[in-house]
C-alpha cells in the first residue's frame, strides 16, 4: 500500500549566483513498511526532498514550485501550515545527518525528547519523564535517568545519533526519514546505528526513507533504491536489481567508482567531470556532459522516468547494462 507518493516535486532557491532549481520534478513513492534508499551525491537534492516533505524548505530563499506530496490520501502541499506541523513528528519523523547541530545545545536531551510529547499533547506532564527514559533505554543509552539531564555536547557522536533516533520514534510515526544518519560516524559506530535503525523499524513497522551516498549501507538496509542526480530521480529499482544490473549511466558510474572492501580492485573507474552547477544545469539530460553515451538527443530532450522492466524506472534515453 502506498504510504507516501511524491509527484513532480520542484523546489528552487534564490542565491547570489541566481535561481537554483534544487528539485526538478522528483517523483517516487514509499510503501508501508518499506525502506527506500535515496542515493545520490552531494547537492543532488536529497535533503531538499526531505525538507519539502517535512515543510522545512526555508522561504525565502526557497520556494516549492510545483508537484504534489500525497500522504495518507491528502496532498500535503495543499494543507494549511498548522495541519502540516501536526503531522510532523507524529506521523512523519526526520533524523538529521549532523546530530550535534540538530540538537539544541542549550536544552538537556531529556527535555528535547520530552518536547515531542509536550508539543503534540501526547502524554501527561508526569508521565513524560518515564517515557523519555524508556526511549533512551530502547535506543541503547545506558544510565538513561542520569543522562537525560545532560546536554548534547556531553555525548559522543554515536550517542547523539541515538538520541535523534529516540526523538524520531517517540510518537511511533508511519514514516521515518533518515538524512544520512551515519555519514558523520565511524564504521564501528555506524554499524551500531544501522543495526539500531533496523531493529526499531522492524519493531514499529514504519516505512523509512534512508538518504545516503554510501552504497554499502544501502546494500545492507534498503528494499528499494532511488538514485538522484541534479534534482531528479534518474533510476529506481529494487536494491538487488540496482546493484546487480544498474541501467542509468550515472548509477553504473557510481557503482564502478567505489573501491570495495571485500575485493582488491586494481583500478577504479571514476565518473569523469564533476557535478554540474545547479544554477546553470545543462540543457536536456543534466548528466549528459559526463555521460559516455550522450548523443544529440540528450541535449534537447529531458528524459523522463520511464518503465524499464518490472518494478524499475530509468530516466535515460539510452539505458543499458554496464559495459
Amino acid at each position: 500500500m502506498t504510504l507516501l507518493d511524491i509527484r513532480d516535486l520542484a523546489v528552487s532557491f534564490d542565491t547570489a549566483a541566481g535561481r537554483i532549481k534544487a528539485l526538478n520534478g522528483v517523483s517516487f513513492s514509499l510503501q508501508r513498511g518499506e525502506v527506500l534508499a535515496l542515493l545520490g551525491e552531494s547537492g543532488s537534492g536529497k535533503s531538499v526532498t526531505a525538507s519539502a516533505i517535512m515543510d522545512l524548505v526555508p522561504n525565502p530563499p526557497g520556494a516549492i514550485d510545483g508537484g504534489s506530496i500525497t500522504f495518507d490520501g491528502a496532498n500535503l502541499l495543499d494543507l494549511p501550515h498548522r495541519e502540516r506541523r501536526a503531522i510532523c513528528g507524529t506521523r512523519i519523523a526526520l533524523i538529521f545527518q549532523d546530530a550535534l547541530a540538530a540538537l539544541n545545545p542549550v536544552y538537556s536531551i531529556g527535555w528535547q525528547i520530552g518536547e515531542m510529547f509536550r508539543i503534540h499533547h501526547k502524554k501527561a506532564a508526569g508521565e513524560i519523564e518515564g517515557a523519555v527514559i524508556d526511549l533512551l533505554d530502547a535506543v541503547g543509552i545506558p544510565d538513561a535517568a542520569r543522562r537525560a539531564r545532560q546536554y548534547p555536547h556531553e555525548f559522543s557522536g554515536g550517542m547523539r545519533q541515538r538520541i535523534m533516533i529516540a526523538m524520531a520514534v517517540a510518537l511511533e510515526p508511519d514514516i521515518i526519514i533518515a538524512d544520512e544518519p551515519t555519514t558523520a560516524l565511524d564504521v564501528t559506530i555506524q554499524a551500531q546505528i544501522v543495526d539500531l535503525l533496523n531493529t526499531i523499524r522492524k519493531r514499529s513497522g514504519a516505512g523509512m526513507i534512508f538518504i545516503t551516498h554510501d552504497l554499502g549501507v544501502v546494500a545492507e538496509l534498503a528494499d528499494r533504491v532511488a538514485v538522484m542526480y541534479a534534482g531528479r530521480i534518474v533510476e529506481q529499482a529494487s536494491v538487488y536489481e540496482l546493484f546487480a544490473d544498474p541501467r542509468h549511466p550515472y548509477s553504473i558510474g557510481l557503482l564502478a567508482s567505489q573501491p570495495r572492501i571485500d575485493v582488491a580492485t586494481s583500478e577504479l573507474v571514476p565518473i569523469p567531470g564533476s557535478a554540474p552547477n545547479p544554477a546553470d544545469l545543462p540543457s536536456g539530460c543534466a548528466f549528459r556532459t559526463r555521460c559516455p553515451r550522450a548523443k544529440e538527443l540528450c541535449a534537447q530532450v529531458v528524459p523522463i522516468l520511464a518503465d524499464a522492466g518490472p518494478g524499475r524506472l530509468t530516466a535515460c534515453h539510452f539505458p543499458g547494462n554496464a559495459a
Partner: protein
Amino acid sequence: MSPKILLRRTALAALALLALMAATFFLVRLTGDPVNLYLPVDASQAARDAMRIQLGLDRPLVVQFFEFLFNVLRLDFGTSLWHNRPAMEVVLEALPRTLALGAIALALAFAISALVGVIAAANAGSAVDRLINVVSQAAASVPDFWLGLMCVLVFAVNLRLLPTSGFGGPAYWVLPVVCLMARPFGMLVQIIRGSMIEALNASYVRTARAKGAREGRVGFVHALRNALLPAVTVTGDLAAQFAGGGGVVEVVFGFPGIGKLLIDGILRRDFAIVQSSIFAVAVVIFLINILVDILYATIDPRVRVE
C-alpha cells in the same frame, strides 16, 4: 564557578587593578596642578606653595605614588579637595544611583529589543523588518546628549509632562533612562535580529520544526535562547560602560551619578575623586564580568566559566 577559578580571576583582576590605578595616578597628575584651581586668583605665591606642601604635591612623584599605593592597600582613597570629605564616601554615594540608572536602562533595552529583534528576524525582509531596522539604526546612531536636550525641550518645556532634570522620584528617571536606552536598544535589536536570523537557520531549529513545534515556540523557546548569547556579551560590555557613568547624559540631566562625578572630578582636578571613582568602577566592572560569565553559562551549558 568553582572557588579556585574565582580566586584566580580575582588575583588577576587585582593585578590589572593595580596597573590601572598606577596609570590613573600618573595620568591625572599629568593634567596639571590643582592648586591654582583651588586658590583664589589673588592668593599669593607663598599661599600656593603652602598648599602644594600641604597636599604633598611638592614631593617627588614616586614618593607620592608609593604613599598612594600604601593608602589604597589600607582602603584609604584620600580626601576630595572639592568635596572636602573622604573621596570614597562621595563615590559610594554616586555609584549606586548610576548603577540603578544603568541597570534600569539596560534591562528595559534588553527586554524590548529581544521582543522587537525576534519580530524583525521572524519577518526578515518584510516592511516591519525594514521599519525596525531603520528605527534601531537611528536609535544606535543618535547622539545621546542631543537626544537628551531634545527630550527636555519637548517633554519638559513644551509638554510639561516631566521634570527637566535633577534627581528625585520616578518622574526624574524617565528621560535619563530613555536617553541612555537609545543606543543599547539600537545595538541590541541589531544583534538579536542578526543572531535570531542565524539561529532560525540553524539545524536545531529545523529539528524543532520537524518535531512539529509551532513558529512561536520555535522562535522564543528554541532560537531565542541561543540567539541571546551575543546579546548578553554586548549587554555585558554596555553594562561595563554604564558602570563608568552615563557620562554626558548625567551632565545634561544633572543626574548626580558617578559619570558626572568623574567628569567634574577631572575638570576640577580632584585627584582623589578621579582615583576612587576609577577604582570603584573597575571593581564593579569586574563583578559585572563575572556575572555575565555566570549568566552565559546558565544560558549555554557548553560554556564553562574560566
